[in-house]
């Protein structure tokens, strides 16, 4: 039997640390292990005993780059536990917080992580300043990132670990002058986003494998907060049901929890959102990205990057609208008496559906908590896609080349290991662990069955 092993340690140009181990026997992939190798920091265990007021800032530290998504999900969970209904102005400011995050975070991923693959460069900063196209892209990338960053600073205080949003509202409010400046900056960045959409509409990489998609879809416009969890097959789940529709899968070689839906892998993120809710995009986005939107719904995972580019445009178009048509006035934070209960906060983070849960006692002290992140949900789907890719390539190119293609595929998902590694709900069954561990760390696994939520 001819056996080939492909091993990628420390995959580059992603958020955090991950490795990939693929076994091919007689020209067919027999085993794929995508392992998140960041050490766990036990954020959910550390929630216990903290006051509810500390929870958004605490869970924000799970991850730098998508910290503001964790802030929004944690606030939603805490408000749900206390029965707080926020004002319409707060809802608008939260939309803007997400738009600032999405435009900054997607631009970082598309320009700094993915684009070097398209231009055969090792790094975005190696783009040639004397080549007109590459020169333009360099400027575009940092311009869009800066615009998203400034929107976050205006609305949320800062783009990493936001300080203005709290349980019940906001501590500070955008000034009219600040709003006008950001509108100008967003308008100036819009042509750069249109160029970005074209780059990814024409990008040559494709991998089409049928899978399932899932996203939170708000009732009003295309967005990230509020609404129901919807699949591309039209199944609908309420936020209060939390993760009852998801099946936890233990991967003993990875520091993160993985999930399946109806026994199969599924995908969350920009591709899922655009596939399911593209009709709700801003009218100007629909008009300007009409050609690109014809490609959706799509089962080509590399279209996740095109979907991200389209989402940046939507964020810019909706932010310009909200900032131009509203005057933000100081208003008090909505408060409610402490009570014992359970709260769920489910939102769309840039990389997909993010679930936070808090369990409170009657004094507002956290008794328990749970966090499910997008990268954990995508983990099984990533493994399926890698197996499919390797089956297609194994006869066609040398191992080193296939390794590069695997890295590109993983990058298309924009996985975030910082988020992925730290809330493992272990449900480990010794009977299923017959496979050889993928990493040294996994080699230390002891036998037995256990279920502990950290």
């Amino acid at each position, binding site marked *: 039997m001819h056996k080939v092993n492909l091993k990628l340690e*420390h995959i*580059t*140009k*992603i*958020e955090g*640390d991950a490795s990939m181990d693929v076994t091919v026997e007689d020209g067919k992939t027999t085993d794929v292990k995508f392992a998140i190798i960041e*050490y*766990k*920091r*036990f*954020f959910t*265990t*550390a929630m*216990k*005993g903290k006051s509810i007021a500390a929870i958004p800032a*605490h869970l924000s*530290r799970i991850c*730098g780059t998508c910290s503001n998504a964790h802030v929004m999900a944690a606030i939603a969970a805490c408000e749900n536990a206390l029965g707080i209904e926020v004002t319409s102005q707060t809802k608008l400011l939260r939309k803007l917080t997400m738009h600032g995050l999405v435009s*900054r975070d997607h631009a*970082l991923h598309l320009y*700094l*992580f993915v684009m*070097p693959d398209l231009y055969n460069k*090792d*790094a*975005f*900063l*190696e783009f040639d*300043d004397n080549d007109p196209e590459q020169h333009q892209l*360099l400027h575009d990338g*940092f311009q869009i*990132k*800066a615009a998203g*960053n400034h929107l976050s600073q205006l609305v949320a205080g*800062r*783009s*990493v*670990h936001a300080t203005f949003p709290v349980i019940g509202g906001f501590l500070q409010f955008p000034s009219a002058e600040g709003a006008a400046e950001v509108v100008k900056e967003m308008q100036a960045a819009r042509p750069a986003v249109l160029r970005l959409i074209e780059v990814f509409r024409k990008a040559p990489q494709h991998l089409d494998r049928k899978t399932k998609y899932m996203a939170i879809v708000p009732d009003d416009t295309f967005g990230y907060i509020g609404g129901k969890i919807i699949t591309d097959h039209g199944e609908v789940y309420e936020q209060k049901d939390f993760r009852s529709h998801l099946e936890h899968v233990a991967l003993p070689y990875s*520091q993160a929890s993985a999930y399946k839906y109806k026994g199969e892998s599924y995908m969350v993120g920009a591709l899922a959102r655009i596939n399911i809710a593209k009709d709700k995009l801003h009218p100007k986005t629909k008009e300007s990205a009409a050609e690109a939107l014809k490609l959706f719904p799509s089962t080509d995972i590399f279209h996740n990057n095109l979907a991200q580019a389209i989402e940046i445009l939507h964020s810019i178009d909706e932010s310009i609208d909200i900032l131009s048509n509203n005057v933000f006035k100081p208003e008090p934070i909505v408060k409610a008496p402490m009570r014992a209960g359970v709260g769920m906060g489910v939102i769309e983070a840039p990389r997909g559906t993010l679930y936070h849960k808090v369990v409170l006692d009657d004094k507002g002290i956290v008794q328990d908590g749970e966090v499910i992140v997008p990268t954990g949900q995508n983990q099984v789907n990533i493994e399926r896609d890698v197996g499919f890719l390797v089956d297609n390539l194994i006869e066609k190119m040398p191992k080193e080349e296939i390794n590069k293609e695997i*890295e590109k595929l993983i990058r298309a998902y924009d996985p975030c290991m910082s988020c992925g590694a730290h809330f*493992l709900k*272990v449900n480990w069954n010794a009977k299923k662990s017959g496979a050889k561990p993928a990493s*040294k*760390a*996994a080699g*230390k*696994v*002891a036998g037995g069955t*256990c279920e*502990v939520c*950290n």
Partner: protein
Amino acid sequence: MTEVMNDHWQEWKELFDFRHARVMKSNNVMDSFDIAFIEGAMAGPEQVEKLKDIRSRSKKLVAVGSCAIVGMPAGQRNAFTQEQKDSIDYLVTRFGALPEVKKVSDVVKVDAEIPGCPMDPKVFLEKVNGLVAELRG
């Protein structure tokens, strides 16, 4: 740091030769560094060894952010109650993590610190510019 880059990428493109930064590039070289920036705390034995190795290759070593400088919140398990420690113990063992998380200065000499979570971009620029001036003598 990638946000600081929005305003400084042109200058940095000329000034710095980024030798090893997995988040930015694939062809990383671990030879010798003028300045090494360390983020995060040390949770596993191989991270401690790697940090010592980086120190031996670097003229200056800078600890960036709370986790690197004070070890928190990445090392919050150090401060857990016995009950919390018992609940995670099997996971710490399973993945071969250190019994206690270490901050950078527990392991190597630190030449400069950029505190905060997130770190303050102004302090970052001040310290980096100071080190560049010092290295250029």
